[in-house]
């Protein structure tokens, strides 16, 4: 049968570059497993468009290793079955994946990735659970580190002090629970008490949570949830005269929120920690990306998904270039190239080190604050830095 | 998992296991009369309404006992109590020595009490044959495992019982309709399916709620003959609710008359028919009813 004769696709091109799955003489195929119709649609759309932009730019500039980059996109709509099916579908035909949204789905195929497939996958998720695999690599600080950095910012600015209670509102699941690990660690280090509030992505009204936190007498709130929950939380707290600072992880903000009733409150005392500079930053790289993205997708707003998608894609490009230099565009070659990458920077404020699969590529976070006047709605209030407790934090503990 | 509640032998007698007085009969030759059905002081109340008020009567073994009375007198309620659908507020119903009050419908059915429904209770899409096979539920034993695994015993059982369904259909006059969906039959035929289904239970006591309603005169006659044939052939007791006095007069050995839930008269058909209370409450002096009755009496 046709199936039997199918080889493993390995070969060597005229220039002596070893090739494997997803690489032909003319193209390098990369997979994109995204969510543009499900719960993470807004993230998925920005990330995917930014990556498409990167691919177009790269191809215009002559491609990589004499080949054009081809992205094959599958929208799984945050449905596990579709996600796994899409992975199965694309895996034989692509070199690796520049995007994979939905950490449970990454976990679902992780055994296959580590066991046989060995293609490089860059998930758009920052859970520490994803660490440890040489093929599934998190770009940026994990949620736990990010949360430690965020709390440290409040401590550093003397918004909270030893002995205080702080609230932590977090999503059920990977994201929230990983962030909770961080906040608990930070609290332990700084002598704070955490008041937990677990919520679900379908909860949109944070009144009860605010009431509970108010009752507990917290001095600050950490939110590891979605943008809507953050907006509701901040809005309710502010309206009720419960004036405490709120810090959130990188996923807890969307610029669209600034146009809603919660907008003013968000701009008052809300902070976001993230592993990149905001798209609205004045630095060269963000500025350039912002202009180019706006030109390519004039109807769509700018947000941090654009930055993180573009960063991941650029990383993939960098790795491919290095692999090309070592004349090995197979999956092994790509993996090897990545492990050799210990100072990768695209001008978004943070330098990444990919030499240790068991650690995130950075422990630094930028702290930002909503501002409706900047594109992307965020401005920097504290440059990238590592909080002291984050330095000594060990993963999986 | 449902096999445990089957009556052993599943034969025509159909008395419950553990019912000491009657061991189950196996053959047609055997003709133990069924035990008497005794209704004692049964009262049924619904919110603000007494549907049956201390009603007592006895259905003698092997007899046809008619229960008549005006609309809303409590006849169907009485059937509902007998068949376990309603629970009597007080009073008792016994089959022989077995107390029926408080038993769930399927337990009552297991004792061999079968009934038809006044307002038809047939599945709309099932064929007549399948509807009638349902009546044989209590006589068969194939459970989930046996049918799921298609054990030969289940197949054999199904074959035997289908054959019997054929006989009964022939008997009530539905032989040609076995494969038609019961819901598509005309009203009168649906009543026959109800009757056939009850007969399929091989009952010891048969409760018929208006079996001839919606039939023409000669269809009534035929159905009445079927009922008479049942008593003759099977020797079972029959309780009959019917507004057609002709049929009642022809078939009944004894009559109980209810009005507003109370028993107002009882006795032989002739006694009852001339009872002034019954005439006033139920029969009236309408020329029509007298006429039908007379006509029917002309064909004893």
């Amino acid at each position, binding site marked *: 049968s046709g199936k039997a004769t199918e080889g493993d696709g390995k070969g060597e091109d005229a220039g002596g570059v070893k090739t494997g799955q997803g690489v032909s003489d003319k193209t390098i195929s990369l997979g994109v497993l995204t969510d543009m119709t499900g719960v993470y649609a807004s993230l998925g759309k920005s990330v995917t468009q930014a990556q498409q932009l990167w691919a177009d730019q790269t191809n215009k500039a002559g491609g990589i290793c004499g080949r054009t980059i081809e992205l094959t996109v599958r929208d799984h709509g945050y449905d596990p079955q579709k996600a796994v099916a899409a992975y199965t579908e694309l895996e034989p035909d692509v070199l690796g994946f520049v995007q994979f949204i939905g950490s*449970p789905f990454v976990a*679902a195929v992780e055994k296959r990735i580590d066991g046989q497939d060995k293609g490089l996958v860059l998930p758009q998720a920052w859970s520490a659970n994803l660490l440890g695999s040489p093929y599934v690599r998190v770009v940026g600080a994990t949620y736990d580190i990010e949360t430690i950095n965020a709390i440290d910012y409040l401590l550093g600015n003397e918004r909270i002090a030893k002995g205080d209670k702080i609230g932590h509102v977090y999503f059920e699941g990977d994201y929230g629970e990983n962030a909770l690990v961080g906040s608990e660690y930070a609290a332990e280090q700084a002598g704070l008490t955490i008041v937990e509030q677990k919520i679900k992505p379908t909860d949109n009204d944070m009144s009860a949570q605010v009431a509970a936190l108010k009752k507990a007498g917290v001095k600050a709130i950490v939110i590891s949830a979605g943008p809507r929950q953050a907006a509701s939380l901040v809005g309710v707290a502010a309206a009720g005269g419960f004036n405490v600072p709120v810090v959130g992880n990188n996923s807890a903000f969307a610029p669209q929120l600034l146009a809603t009733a919660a907008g003013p409150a968000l701009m008052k005392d809300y902070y976001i920690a993230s592993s990149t500079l905001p798209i609205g930053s004045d630095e060269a790289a963000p500025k350039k990306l912002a202009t180019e993205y706006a030109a390519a997708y004039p109807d769509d707003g700018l947000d941090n998904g654009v930055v993180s998608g573009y960063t991941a894609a650029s990383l993939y490009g960098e790795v491919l270039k290095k692999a090309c230099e070592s004349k090995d565009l197979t999956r092994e070659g790509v993996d090897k190239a990545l492990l050799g990458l210990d100072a990768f920077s695209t001008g978004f404020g943070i330098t990444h080190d990919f030499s240790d699969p068991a650690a995130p590529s950075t422990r630094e976070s930028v702290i930002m604050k909503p501002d409706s006047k900047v594109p992307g709605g965020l401005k920097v209030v504290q440059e990238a830095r590592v909080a002291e407790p984050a330095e000594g934090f060990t993963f999986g503990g | 998992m449902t096999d445990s509640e089957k009556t052993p032998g599943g034969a025509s007698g159909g008395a419950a296991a553990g019912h000491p007085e009657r061991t189950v009969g196996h053959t047609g030759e055997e003709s133990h009369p069924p035990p008497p059905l005794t209704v004692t002081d049964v009262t049924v109340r619904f919110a603000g309404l007494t549907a049956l008020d201390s009603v007592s009567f006895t259905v003698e073994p092997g007899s046809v006992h008619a229960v008549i009375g005006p609309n809303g007198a409590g006849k169907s309620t009485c059937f509902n109590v007998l068949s376990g*659908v309603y629970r009597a507020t007080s009073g008792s119903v016994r089959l022989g020595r077995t107390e029926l009050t408080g038993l769930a419908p399927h337990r009552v059915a297991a004792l061999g009490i079968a009934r038809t429904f006044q307002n038809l209770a047939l599945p709309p899409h099932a064929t007549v044959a399948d509807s009638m096979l349902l009546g044989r539920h209590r006589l068969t034993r194939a459970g989930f495992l046996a049918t799921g695994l298609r054990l030969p015993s289940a197949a054999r059982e199904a074959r035997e019982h289908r054959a019997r369904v054929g006989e009964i259909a022939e008997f009530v006059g539905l032989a040609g309709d076995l494969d038609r969906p019961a819901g598509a039959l005309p009203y009168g035929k649906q009543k026959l399916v109800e009757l056939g289904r009850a007969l399929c239970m091989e009952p010891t006591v048969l409760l018929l709620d208006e079996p001839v309603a919606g039939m023409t005169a000669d269809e009534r006659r035929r159905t009445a003959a079927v009922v008479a044939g049942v008593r003759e052939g099977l020797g079972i007791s029959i309780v009959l609710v019917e507004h057609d006095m002709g049929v009642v007069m022809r078939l009944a050995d004894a009559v109980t008359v209810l009005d507003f839930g109370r028993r107002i008269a009882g006795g032989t058909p002739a006694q009852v028919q001339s009872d002034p209370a019954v005439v006033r409450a139920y029969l009236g002096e309408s020329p029509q009813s007298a006429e039908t009755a007379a006509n029917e009496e002309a064909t004893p």
Partner: protein
Amino acid sequence: MSDTTHAPAKAAPHRTPRAYLWLAGSLLLLALPFYLDRFWLQAGLFAMAAAIGAIGLNLLTGATGQLSMGHSFFLAVGAYGYCVFAGESGEENGRQLTGLGLPTWLAVVLAVLLAGAAGGLFSPIAGRLRGAYLGIATLALIFIGQHVLFNAGDLTGGFNGRDVPVLSLFGFDFDDTEVVIAAVPFGSSEKLWYAGLFALLVGGLFARGVLRGRPGRAMNAIRDHRIAAGVMGVPVARYRAAVFVLSSMYAGLAGVLIALIFQRTVPDYFGMILALEYLAMIVIGGLGTVAGAVVGAAFVALLPQLLTHYSDSLPLVADPGSGGVTPGEASRYLYGAAIVAVVLFLPGGLTRLSVPMVRRFSREKS
């Protein structure tokens, strides 16, 4: 293969066209792993698992009239039950997981029984409620299930689920270590394909026997007229409970199969959407029959896969991100429209389609 085509030749004169169709269909199904990619095999496997689950739901909802929107809960019980029974205790992803380390075949059996037991536990509620009330009450199961899946981390692995132990029968492992058969490398999908076919066949035949036999008639009677069923001697409450148990066992088996296909259990999967999809399957295929469940499952499980796979070549579909209708959206439109249209134009389900066709076929033959 030539043997198989020769063997029934003697009986041929008695064979109906339907039997030939069956034969051809079975041969095709047996041969597919030699030709199809892992993607299609996996899609087929999902369809088989769905078919098994849908048969169970059709016993409950189609044949007995008990609307259930909680079917995915029982699938979850099967899937996680298998993981717990077969898995080893130990650390996974930084979590301490409990596992009993039983032989996998035993774990399958126990998982199915466990799902049945879960159904049995719910049956007192099922016994009291009817219609839409029962349907929405069963929805509670899904929320309870999700809550447990997320919170009982040492059993379920929480949000990211836990690894599914490889099924091993008589020393044969259904995993990705390649076995080459007829020059075709057999991975887990190819191997599981046959296990799935076998499970579906056995499950389908069993359910068909039940539906056509005495229990099936009793179940239909309960659906059509509960009181009359009781009067005819059917122990209604007991039957309803029994069917709930049986249906949950089918769901449990489907769950085990799904876990084996996924190689990892993911709690998100066992949500309300899945439960509604199962309902859609039996309605689309045809209520109350095994064939209906199978056809409906194939339709619902494969259609979205087909649509996304070929969406690139669909007209009117724009590239993701270009602002038009994306392939994902296009496939959802088509899927929604398909549900509406199938039910509209084929009342009684897709299986109705085959009846006149086969009949016409046999008429032409004779």
